[in-house]
């Protein structure tokens, strides 16, 4: 410990500061406090803070500087903290002090070359005083500053960092106090080592500093209220015991007014009386949202710095303001996007076959062709309308979904893969009747089969969905933020763009003449076009592997084999005698049903972890947790860290962001050979619940560290880490194993 000159400096009330109830004094001159004067107090020991009820005498706050490092390194940055120990019953103030008060200030007088950042404030609490509410701290607070040492420091020298802290401390009455603070540290070459005591104090303080909100936020106003909407979806209302918004500025909200909080599936809304400053609600509102969450055996407060945008600017994502997209722009983009969809690997083959049938029958009656074109367009529009309708309805119900949501279901992806596979097989010629699905020439000449064209359109839409999102992001983002009628319009224009090329070919005879002459090349092209479809199938199988793991892949592959068999059987049976054909048709039906029926197995099964490590560039890589994997690793004597977490657990999220996801933790894990397993309890997996129970827990977070075993023998019981983690805690615990 090298806190040589660091000591508690007794603060003194500023000369001339009030002392409640003192007799009226003649005009007094305020005396600036010289360091020398205050220095007299240095050796006087802790002041009598215990006598806090005795009104005057003695400072109410003891202030000192603490450092996270015990030596300085040239050019390096490090954290120091101004630690205020506040007498019971008294409080000091946050950056926005609320209804009254004044934040602590720290004026540095640093040696040449040193640079100091601004004060970093831990989140405040509410301090009630009569009808007023102040934002501040009771007990103890550490205000942080990041200092940077100059490059030209001489190793071996000693540097004293000085400053003067001034603060207002209040109970019912207020006393301005101030104190000189100083900290002397040696300069050492190389990486500075952590100060044992200071690092812990500073780590604790940093844990209370608001972290950037992972959720976008917006606000709307009425003449009397401000309502904030924080898109913190999927939180567990039962776990949340308190939510409070601390605005960064005065005048935005009434500080003392109650905040009506509603935690719903799609996020948190918070309504509060508006402050007196009208202009405050015209710009983004900044502040700190503190959410208190019930944990096993206590509560934890998590603070998030929030920047809420006015609702009309926030758009669908609530992200940074973007140039607003007009309806006309959105429609244009949607049309262009729809046209582009025709070239997507999943759509192109379907359409090409449609086009090929036109080549074959360019001489057919124009009226019939036109009707096919219209039927196809209607199919596309109907399918788009359906998907968009479902999406809009779900969003109205509070779900936070985007276009392409259907692909988040392994079941839908499996069925899509199977449909595209059938199409591919038909193009490959396995199924000779393939033409019918895609609008057979027969139908074109006879004028039958408009239904077929309609469903081709629907099929093209279904095939297009996987490709939609990335290309149409802007238009779709716009659409989803609009009233449902506008949203539907944008989606339908998108569909119209998809249908347009084929529609034009059927409507304008002149364009058909541009098509090449029919010939054997058509068969080759048809066969070739099967391959983009197989490609799309392969991609969808990969998607399933991400969503449902190896069991999902097994199911989808089994389904594809069954479909292959059914298709072959169906095609082969066309040439045999009638009873056989009937039997074959029945078998095909059974096989097809079986293939589809396998799908729900994927959909309903728990999403099984893939077992593959997940790389994280910012933190340690992790594998999904399973009790078997833990047993396996422990049998090999490998140390294991298990993070039991859930998407709806705020504390888990903050721990991951602030403590676990750090390069230092990753390096320590790597050096110690620790395998990091993540147990995601978002869906309340019973396997994980049993493990939690065995540790006496009913919920997350839970952090376990299994020590190293000797020579392949499993070692002892795991260490249970605290529910509120810091980087240092994890590293410390891992270092000890």
């Amino acid at each position, binding site marked *: 410990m090298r806190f040589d000159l660091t000591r508690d400096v007794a603060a003194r009330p500023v000369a*001339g500061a009030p002392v409640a109830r003192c007799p009226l004094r003649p005009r007094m001159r305020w005396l600036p406090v010289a360091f020398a004067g205050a220095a007299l107090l240095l050796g006087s020991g802790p002041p009598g803070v215990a006598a806090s009820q005795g009104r005057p005498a003695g400072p109410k706050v003891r202030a000192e500087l603490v450092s996270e490092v015990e030596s300085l390194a040239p050019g390096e940055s490090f954290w120091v903290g101004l630690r205020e120990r506040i007498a019971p019953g008294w409080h000091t103030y946050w950056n926005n002090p609320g209804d009254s008060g004044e934040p602590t200030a720290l004026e540095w007088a640093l040696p040449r070359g040193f640079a100091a950042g601004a004060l970093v404030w831990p989140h405040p609490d509410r301090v009630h005083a009569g009808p*007023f509410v102040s934002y501040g701290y009771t007990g103890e607070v550490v205000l942080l500053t990041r200092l940077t040492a100059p490059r030209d420091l001489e190793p071996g020298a000693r540097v004293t960092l000085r400053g003067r802290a001034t603060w207002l401390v209040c109970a019912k009455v207020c006393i301005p106090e101030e104190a000189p603070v100083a900290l002397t540290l040696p300069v050492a070459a190389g990486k500075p080592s952590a100060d044992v005591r200071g690092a812990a104090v500073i780590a604790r303080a940093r844990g209370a500093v608001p972290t950037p909100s992972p959720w976008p936020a917006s606000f709307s106003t009425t003449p009397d*209220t401000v309502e904030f909407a924080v898109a913190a979806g999927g939180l567990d209302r039962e776990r949340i015991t308190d939510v409070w918004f601390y605005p960064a500025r005065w005048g935005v909200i009434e500080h003392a007014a109650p*905040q009506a909080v509603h935690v719903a599936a799609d996020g948190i809304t918070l309504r509060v009386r508006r402050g007196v400053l009208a202009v405050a609600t015209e710009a983004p509102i900044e502040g700190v949202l503190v959410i208190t969450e019930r944990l096993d055996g206590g509560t934890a407060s998590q603070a998030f710095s929030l920047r809420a945008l006015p609702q009309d600017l926030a758009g669908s994502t609530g992200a940074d303001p973007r140039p607003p997209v007009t309806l006309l722009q959105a429609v244009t983009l949607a049309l262009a996007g729809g046209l582009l969809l025709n070239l997507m690997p999943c759509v192109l083959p379907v359409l090409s076959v449609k086009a090929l049938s036109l080549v074959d029958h360019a001489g057919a009656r124009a009226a019939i062709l036109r009707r096919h074109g219209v039927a196809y367009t209607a199919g596309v529009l109907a399918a788009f309308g359906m998907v968009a309708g479902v999406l809009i309805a779900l969003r109205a119900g509070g779900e936070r979904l985007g276009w392409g949501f259907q692909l988040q279901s392994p079941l839908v992806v499996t069925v899509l893969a199977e449909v595209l596979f059938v199409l591919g097989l038909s193009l490959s010629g396995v199924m000779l009747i393939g033409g019918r699905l895609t609008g057979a020439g027969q139908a074109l000449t006879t004028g039958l089969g408009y239904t077929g064209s309609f469903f081709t359109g629907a099929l093209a839409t279904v095939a297009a969905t996987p490709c939609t999102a990335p290309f149409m992001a802007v238009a779709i983002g716009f659409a989803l933020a609009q009233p449902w009628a506008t949203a539907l319009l944008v989606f339908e224009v998108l569909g119209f763009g998809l249908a347009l090329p084929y529609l034009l070919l059927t409507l304008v005879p002149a364009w058909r003449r541009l098509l090449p002459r029919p010939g054997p090349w058509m068969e080759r092209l048809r066969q070739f076009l099967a391959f983009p479809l197989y490609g799309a199938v392969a991609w969808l199988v990969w998607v399933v592997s991400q969503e449902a793991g190896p069991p999902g892949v097994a199911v989808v592959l089994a389904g594809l084999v069954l479909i292959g068999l059914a298709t072959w059987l169906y095609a082969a049976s066309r040439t045999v005698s009638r009873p056989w054909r009937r039997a074959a048709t029945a078998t095909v039906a059974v096989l097809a049903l079986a293939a589809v029926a396998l799908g729900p197995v994927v959909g309903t099964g728990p999403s099984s972890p893939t077992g593959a490590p997940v790389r994280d560039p910012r933190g340690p890589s992790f594998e999904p947790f399973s009790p078997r994997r833990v047993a396996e690793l422990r049998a090999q004597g490998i140390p294991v860290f298990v993070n039991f977490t859930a998407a709806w657990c705020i504390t888990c999220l903050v721990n991951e962001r602030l403590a676990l996801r750090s390069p230092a933790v990753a390096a320590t894990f790597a050096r110690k050979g620790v395998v990091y397993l993540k147990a995601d309890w978002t869906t309340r997996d019973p396997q994980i619940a049993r493990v939690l129970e065995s540790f006496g827990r009913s919920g997350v977070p839970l952090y376990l560290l299994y020590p190293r075993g000797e020579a392949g023998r499993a070692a002892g019981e795991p260490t249970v880490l605290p529910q509120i983690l810091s980087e240092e805690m994890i590293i410390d615990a891992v270092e000890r194993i």
Partner: protein
Amino acid sequence: MAQNPTRRAFLVRTGLAALAGGVAVPWNSWAAAKVGEAAPAFTALASTGRSVSLASYRSKIVVLEWSNHECPYVRKHYETGNMQALQKEATGQGVVWLTVISSAPGEQGYVSPAQANELTTSRGAAPTAVLLDPKGTVGRMYGATNTPHMYVIDPAGLLRYAGAIDDRPTTRTSDVQGAHNYVRAALHAVAAGQPVEAPVTHAYGCTVKYAA
């Protein structure tokens, strides 16, 4: 430091707020005075024993100054002579200056009429009158939260300014010099028939020590 309110307290509070349609029940009696609207009428007892009514000052500019002589922020402006200078400057131009003391008996800043007069003399203050508001009636009417908390009312009786005395929210006397005095600026604007540039500012200081 952590003050974790109980779950029940949370539910009760949010429930109450929800019942009240999000606007607090206990709060709607507050902050009645709004800048740009008519200043609430009041009659209060002055330290001299006479009764003072706002209505009697119609056609004059009126300044309201909330005060608590023991508050360090008030002391800053009296010990430097800043407040007295502004009072003299204003009253010299026909402005009515009312110092209001809303501290309840037993609370910091509470004074008897005699003490109030003695304070005016000893500090060399120059208000038109010092109003004693121990029940906090006038204070709550105006939503006065701090000492000093300043208000400017125009000759038509409209509230034109509410907020701090200046832009240096500290107790440091050295900050008086060079500070932008909002009240002086508001008085000039009102006298010239111009809009007040910063009609609402963050009043800084000690909380008004109202009766519980």
